[in-house]
């Protein structure tokens, strides 16, 4: 079945054909095509491969295994949900961009070689930027441009890595994990930077940009909050999770990823606490959630990799749901700045309910999806005795509840009563349906994790690990409830920082301000060097021209008429010189 229509290409084709579909049918096509793709994927047995030849190279367009399948399933599901959420939107540009973007992400997931991966990797960058530009503001345009430059750079690094790898090994194939005791290792896994293959470092940098590694992360917090209401929901589902998939596939068991991931879980939450734009808070929190998955990849045991894959699945749903909730607020209120929101629960009760469910899921409350997936990564870190990492992950878990679990619903829907400059009503029906389905799945996965566990790369029964043992439940409840208590304590004593309209500078200052200043400074320097050189040249040219004029003007040594005898002697001397040269040569 899959030989006929490779996953991802169906969505790309669907997206490209959307302009010729009558407008009234477009939305239905956008929902049905991902569902059709999901159905086809369901019929495709594990191990299916589709290869093709390009010049002298044998490339693998599609390879379905247990890791690519779970990401493929959630990507299709997310695309269908996003399409329902965007049902009210008639912007053809966004519709085409969104469908082709989702298709490129799915196609990249099933890529069996580095070149195919590169093509669709860049495909996700080029298509998704239109979801930012579609906001049609100067700010969005600039943000989109920065996003595009960084995303394309990631692709270029991937291509460079592929070329270096090919020249060294003669192969472009993305191979499966190898086993090293209890640990799995990806094809590019390394033990130390010195022992790493140069290609592995290039590819890691490429994946690291898309996975928002520390210092490479700012494109995410910069661009996602600037995209359209529906665009951000699409964006939050694919790019970073594709990077997590690629990391898991190629770098499983690389211990360097453990401290990188742990840093990712911890530092964004400080920003999330003080950020005012609630979609930017969610972008920081997204970065934090990616950290757990990166830690899981670094640990590289079966439980850890199951945790990474499962957490990515759950995360796409609850993070999408949270962005949907904030998108609904923007749709109705016009913005989602915490400093100017509050009291919306009376006006948007269902949005409040669904967003709160998303908040509970991301906080990993028992009976919600985050709990049954994140616990795997926490347990894996503890089992492998990564003590500091375990401590950081616990800290970050408490922090997530604080900024995503409490802050988002509290400041948007509760906090203070507020007058709005327009009549606020509940979100449109299509948004409510999408949020309702996502909320249902967050609870369903939390209460009945077995269907999700069945999709994971390794058999959970064989791992002898269950989420709902009394220790997991009680310790997690303690952590979360006392985080809530801390919020109450800080609010009560006036220690909680108020929501303020502001910009918080992050590492992107380096290229948005520092870099800009450096470039402007260099430009000025070049300008002054050029001006100096030009003036000097004019000066020199002037003096040469004056000298020539003085020789040739009337009264100058060459300006006077020569006697005929002098001319004859001069001609004879030149002739003799030429003759001598001819005789010698």
């Amino acid at each position, binding site marked *: 079945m899959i030989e006929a229509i490779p996953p991802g290409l169906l969505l790309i084709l669907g997206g490209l054909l959307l302009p010729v579909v009558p407008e009234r049918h477009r939305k239905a096509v956008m929902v049905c095509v991902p569902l059709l793709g999901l159905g086809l994927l369901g019929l495709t047995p594990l191990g299916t491969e589709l290869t093709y030849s390009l010049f002298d190279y044998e490339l693998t367009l599609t390879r379905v295994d247990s890791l690519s399948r779970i990401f493929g399933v959630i990507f299709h599901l997310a695309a269908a949900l996003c399409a329902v959420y965007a049902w009210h939107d008639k912007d053809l540009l966004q519709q085409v961009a969104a469908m082709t973007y989702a298709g490129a992400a799915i196609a990249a997931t099933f890529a069996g070689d580095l070149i195919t991966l590169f093509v669709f990797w860049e495909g996700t960058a080029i298509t998704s930027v239109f979801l930012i530009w579609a906001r049609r503001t100067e700010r969005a345009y600039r943000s989109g441009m920065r996003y595009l430059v960084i995303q394309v750079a990631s692709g270029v690094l991937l291509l460079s890595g592929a070329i270096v790898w090919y020249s060294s090994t003669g192969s472009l194939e993305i191979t499966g994990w190898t086993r090293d005791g209890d640990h799995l290792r990806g094809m590019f896994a390394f033990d130390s930077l010195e022992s790493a293959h140069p290609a592995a470092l290039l590819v890691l940098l490429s994946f690291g940009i898309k996975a928002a590694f520390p210092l490479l992360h700012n494109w995410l917090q910069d661009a996602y909050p600037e995209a359209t209401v529906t665009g951000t929901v699409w964006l939050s589902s694919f790019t970073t999770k594709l990077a997590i998939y690629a990391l898991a596939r190629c770098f499983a068991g690389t211990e360097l990823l453990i401290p990188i991931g742990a840093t990712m879980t911890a530092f964004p*939450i400080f920003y999330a606490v003080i950020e005012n734009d609630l979609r930017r808070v969610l972008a920081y929190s997204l970065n934090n959630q990616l950290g757990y998955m990166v830690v899981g990849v670094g640990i590289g045991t079966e439980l850890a990799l199951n945790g990474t894959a499962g957490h990515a699945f759950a995360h796409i749903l609850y993070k999408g749901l949270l962005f949907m909730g904030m998108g609904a607020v923007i749709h109705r209120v016009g913005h989602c700045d915490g400093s100017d929101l509050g009291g919306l629960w009376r006006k948007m009760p269902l949005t409040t309910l669904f967003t709160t469910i998303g908040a509970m899921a991301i906080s990993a409350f028992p009976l919600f999806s985050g709990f049954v997936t994140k616990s795997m990564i926490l347990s894996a870190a503890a089992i492998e005795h990564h003590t500091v990492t375990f401590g950081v992950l*616990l800290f970050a878990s408490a*922090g997530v509840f604080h900024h995503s679990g409490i802050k988002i619903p509290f400041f948007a829907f509760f906090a203070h009563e507020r007058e709005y400059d327009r009549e606020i009503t509940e979100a449109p029906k299509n948004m409510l349906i999408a949020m309702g389905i996502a909320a249902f799945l967050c609870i369903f996965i939390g209460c009945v994790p077995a269907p999700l566990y069945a999709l994971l790369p390794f058999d959970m029964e064989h791992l002898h690990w269950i989420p709902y043992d009394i220790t997991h439940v*009680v310790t997690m409840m303690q952590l979360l409830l*006392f*985080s809530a208590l801390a919020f109450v304590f800080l609010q009560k004593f006036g*220690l909680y920082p108020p929501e303020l309209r502001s*910009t918080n*500078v992050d590492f992107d200052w380096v290229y948005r301000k520092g870099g800009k200043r450096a470039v402007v400074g260099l430009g000025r320097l070049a300008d002054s060097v050029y001006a100096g050189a030009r003036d000097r040249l004019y000066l020199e040219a002037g003096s040469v021209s004056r000298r020539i004029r003085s020789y040739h003007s009337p009264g100058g040594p060459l300006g006077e008429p020569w006697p005929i005898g002098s001319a004859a002697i001069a001609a004879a001397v030149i002739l003799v010189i030429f003759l001598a040269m001819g005789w010698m040569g």
Partner: protein
Amino acid sequence: MSHEDLPPSVDPKITRIIVWALFVVCTAFVAADLFYDKAAHTHYDFENLVGFHAAYGFLSCVGLVLAAAQMRKLVMRSEDYYDRD
């Protein structure tokens, strides 16, 4: 209008009930540590202390928020900071 001048969105009576309920549930979950074999599923000795995760969660959040509030002094700029040339 500053935040303090705005009326709370939820009736303070209900808020008080929620906060008291939170106290009760928090106490119950710490007490729960005494009634099961915690060590059976933990991986570190420090985790077995009664109320360890409760204290860790509380202190983490207080520390996080206070540190983040201080961080504002370092990183906070006006809203149009990047829009100005």
